[in-house]
């Protein structure tokens, strides 16, 4: 899976990406050394959980499919892959999102890998 993530970094121009479980455990990662894998996984998962819990409390129907956080020094994208999340880290001005072709291709490869 790490090879798929490494290829995604090259194709999508991201600085790093990882696959995490909903409870924040890192499955595979290809992050640049300035990011701590466990820390990114834990915070990403707790943020997704916070969003889901609060939206459910408000009564918002439907699932959260993706989330994109743009900050002064970077961009973070989470994409729901049903049983896990794909997390991407990119430059703040990057236009990467869940619909980008390399991202969709990577999601398909990860899903196929899981099935096989």
């Amino acid at each position, binding site marked *: 899976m790490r090879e798929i993530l490494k290829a995604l970094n090259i194709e999508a121009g991201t600085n790093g990406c990882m696959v995490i479980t909903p409870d924040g455990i890192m499955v595979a990662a290809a992050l640049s050394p300035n990011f701590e894998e466990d820390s990114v996984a834990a*915070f990403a998962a707790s943020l997704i959980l*916070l969003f889901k819990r*609060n939206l459910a409390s*408000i009564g*918002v129907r439907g699932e959260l499919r993706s*989330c994109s956080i*743009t*900050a002064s*020094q970077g961009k*973070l994208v989470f994409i729901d892959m049903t049983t896990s999340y794909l997390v991407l880290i990119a430059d703040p001005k990057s236009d990467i999102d869940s619909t980008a072709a390399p991202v969709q291709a990577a999601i398909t490869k990860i899903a196929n890998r899981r099935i096989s």
Partner: protein
Amino acid sequence: MLPLLLNRAMALHRRKPSERSTIRLSRLLLLTGRTAEAYATISAARKTAPQSEAIRLHYTVVKTEYAAALLSKTLHILKKDTRLENFLRAADLLRTIGQSEKAIAILNKIQAQYPDNWRLEFALGQVYFSRYRDSRHPADLTEALAHLRLARDCAPRNYRVLFLTALVCTNAGLFDEALANTREIRKVLPRDVRALALETQIRQITAATTGSADSTDLSQETTTSEHDSAESAGAMTHSRRAAEILLDRAFALESTACGFVWSTDGDYLASRFREHSHPCFMNGEELLWEMVQGSVVDAAHIGIGQLCSCFLAGTEWTILMRAVDDVIVCIFVEGEHSASSLERLLLKGVLLTAN
């Protein structure tokens, strides 16, 4: 053995969810260290079966375990990153797991560094009030009220501050002050269910103790409230004007269902709702602000800097939270939209500072 039991519990719960299957699944998730999932499972069940005593009890256990797991991560972070957000988060988690003494100690330790900070005073008010609910010691109620009054002075329009102050005042028997706070809430959220419910409760208590009809008093309060509203409208600040401009822009799109605007300190500034929209956002201010705060804190923790925007795409909706000048706006739009199209909508034309 545990993974096998967990898989079976998951399959059973998926096939035929019940009170028993939910509790069993969340217990096994806890045992296998999957506290976040255990919490999500039991929280969902609590919403669908609020009357179930077994689920309520188990929810308390799981919530404590989950808070303890998050606390250990937060305390680890605090060793390296001593920003206020981390202290507040640690204190909140300590309060959740019932360690009020430690929460108070943490907050007191940093009080001198952050004078007149509403978030710190609010957190202290929360912890003392939580301890009062357990111990019923009047000194805790007095302390809670003192801190909440300071928080209210610093953030006079913050929903959470106003509501908790009203609640603490009610517990202290200070009904006039409690009503003054609920009135402030209803100036901006006239149909706020929690404020209205608290007012009804106060009315019932005062009617039971005085035996007099209090409808006259309440009607006088409404008149005062209208007068205050007129005054505050006249003194609308720059931030509030910016908030209204942002909401005008957001509601130019027909599918915008709701919008909230806060100052960067979390002071409520304005909101707008499309009539008959689903879901009902009237009571969602606190939850949406919590999401904004979570994004701000976690963006900094992950190491990508200061939050500019957060875009959520759902199956039937889109949410954009965006920092604009000195305010933060959150809009909920029905249907699918791109982040760039919503940002263009909010940021089009003249700069807010020019208005």
